[in-house]
């Protein structure tokens, strides 16, 4: 732990035990997975690489704002990319902010959206072993997500069954840019397995599905795409609710990650308003769509919405429901939200406890 920690002002979460619902670890290189991959797949990776429905082999089609998407100060001394050095991550994030629990979301090389599905399944298995050995076993504060190849529900269920019961894994994760909306039947076995094992589904904006990033085609700029990925999360909420996933599995819990949250009230109003006139189309919904959102979904704060008048945020959070909100930093990414400053409105002690810790305990059954 660094000396400088002593000089810092006290942190809101410190005494409470903050739970950070979005932390990004990383590999130094894809070769980190070698110990967990069969020779055949190591060869495959070396020859064909990671194949996703995107134009470039080495970068996202929307070039990010910073190298590795990360804060300049998060490049660790081990020479690897941000998030690849446990000791540095402990120092910069876990110890620095007194984090009781950090929810890991891996963004690269997860196998979740590989075009070769068999390779994708093998990658997911390897990634989960790597997460377990290199991260969660080494720092008990870190909790991994079981990454699954979502487009192959049978393989995804196998992956869940393989790890279920291991408390190092607190949720199931799949890419959000799926080929079909996540409420469609092809994905239902994944939700059934997650619910059966009392694991929430954590949906962090990620992945490539070949669909345009908007319903009207491809945007030109990262300044658009960074916003579009959050809009696509609204489509996922719509899908999970309207297709009846939440209604059919009342014990299923879903956490939406890295899409902000101030859009939740207006989406709920819109869903309810139009459901009233079209409920005959979705008879599997017993109540208004918002009722499922309010009982089975949680939303992480980052990137924290910033109203033009900061006080408006209180109203928005109230409309969402204080029990639905989970704090997240998104460390080490460039749009990191600092627990000390990100929530720019005055919270009561109860609200603070809920957002920074207690809601996460409920969502993840910690």
């Amino acid at each position, binding site marked *: 732990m660094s000396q400088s920690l002593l000089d810092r002002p006290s942190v809101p979460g410190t005494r409470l035990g903050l739970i950070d619902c979005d932390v990004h670890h990383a590999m130094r290189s894809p070769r980190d997975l070698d110990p967990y991959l069969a020779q055949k797949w190591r060869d495959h990776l070396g020859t064909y690489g990671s194949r996703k429905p995107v134009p470039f082999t080495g970068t996202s089609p929307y070039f990010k*704002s910073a190298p590795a998407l990360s804060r300049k100060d998060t490049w660790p001394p081990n020479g690897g990319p941000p998030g690849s050095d446990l000791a540095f991550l402990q120092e910069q994030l876990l110890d620095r902010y007194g984090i009781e629990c950090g929810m890991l979301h891996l963004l690269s090389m997860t196998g979740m959206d590989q075009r070769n599905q068999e390779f994708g399944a093998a990658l997911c298995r390897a990634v989960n072993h790597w997460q377990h050995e290199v991260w969660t076993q080494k720092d008990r504060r870190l909790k991994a997500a079981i990454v699954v190849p979502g487009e192959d529900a049978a393989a995804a269920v196998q992956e869940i069954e393989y790890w279920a019961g291991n408390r190092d894994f607190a949720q199931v994760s799949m890419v*959000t*840019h799926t080929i*079909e*909306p*996540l*409420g*469609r039947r092809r994905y239902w076995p994944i939700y059934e397995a997650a619910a059966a094992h009392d694991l929430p589904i954590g949906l962090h904006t990620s992945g490539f*599905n070949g*669909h*345009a*990033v*908007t*319903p*009207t*085609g*491809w*945007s*030109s*700029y*990262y*300044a*658009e795409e*960074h*916003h*579009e990925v*959050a*809009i*696509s999360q*609204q*489509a996922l909420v*719509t*899908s999970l609710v*309207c*297709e009846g996933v939440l209604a059919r599995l009342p014990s299923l819990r879903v956490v939406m990650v890295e899409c*902000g949250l*101030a*859009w939740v*009230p*207006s989406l709920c*109003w*819109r*869903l309810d308003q*139009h459901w009233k*006139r*079209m409920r*005959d*189309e*979705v008879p599997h919904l017993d109540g208004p769509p918002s009722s499922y959102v309010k009982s089975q979904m949680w939303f992480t704060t980052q*990137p924290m*919405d*910033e*109203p*033009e008048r900061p006080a*408006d945020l209180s*109203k*928005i959070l109230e*409309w969402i429901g204080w029990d639905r909100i989970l704090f997240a930093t998104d460390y080490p990414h*460039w*749009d990191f939200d600092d627990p000390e400053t990100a929530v720019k409105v005055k919270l009561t002690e109860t609200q603070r406890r809920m957002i920074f810790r207690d809601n996460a305990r409920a969502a993840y059954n910690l």
Partner: protein
Amino acid sequence: MSFPRIGAIDCDVHPAVPGMRALLPYLDDHWREQVTVRGIDGLDPSSFPVNAGPNCRADWRADGVKPGSSLERLRADALDAFGSRVAICNCLYGAPSVFNADFAAALARAINDWLAAEWLDREPRLRGSIVLPIQDPELAVAEIERRADDPRFVQVLVPAGGEAPLGRRFYWPIFAAAEKHRLPLCIHAGSTFRHATTSNGWPSYYLEDYVTMSHAFQAQLLSLVAEGVFTKFPGLTVVLAESGFTWLPQFMWRQVKTWRAMRAEIPWVDRAPAEIIRDHVRITLQPTDVPPDASALGQVIDMIGTDRFLLFSTDYPHWQFDGDEALPPGLSESLVRKVLVENPLATYPRLKESVA
């Protein structure tokens, strides 16, 4: 509360093209023959299945008549019922969705001429939107130039879900022509089905398409701002029709936040996107996604930060409200006056000249 009869300007009503037969007199010889010989018909948009709940109010429905296809009914149900001095006709027939751009242009001409002859000529309270063959900007500009002399056409019309985001430079000749002729660009709900209706693929239910339609509008606003359309065309106004608007505060906050971080990527966006939107974007009233707590709606409008953006609409014959409750609860008296009269007059310069 009864509807205030102060000569409202209804900015979104939908006369329906009864079918291709009605357009035959307005097609040129080549396309009349193509349509007839090949049996081309049935271009009602999939975004608006006519029997689905939101697309025709029960008491505005008549047996054997396509909703919106009767001028007499529109007069009685939309104009007289609300004492409207003017209503703007947005025709949603399938011209923007056909793949053949020449046919799209022929259809757009036919629809616009049909609207002028069969609706605008017969009812002086009606105004029109120029349907564009958005598939090909050169043809779209030609259609604007062809109809712009008729002052009854007060805006140009494109669907929210198209082939590419509207801010792309490909579309700029359209904006130049629209700006020149003082025609706002109306983006109306609806998809051409060039892309899945969500970026996560095709949903199962119409309800989902309807709800997520607001995402196409958001994508268009992101694009129009990020590509610098309003910097290049400072006189251009964009009207979002049938989009809802309670999503706008959060949308603007996020857009401003991203712009602050990424403005070096789009240096031509020279001020906060929220200011650009408040200056250039107007939104029709219906449907309003009404919050359960009526006071929240006023708070949302307050968060948007302007009382100039909202334009009265009934969305006739779509079912967005019952009786004459076209105004959602929670609007102040002064805002109602702006929404019903002042904002539409300020938005449509060509309309203002003919009703003032």
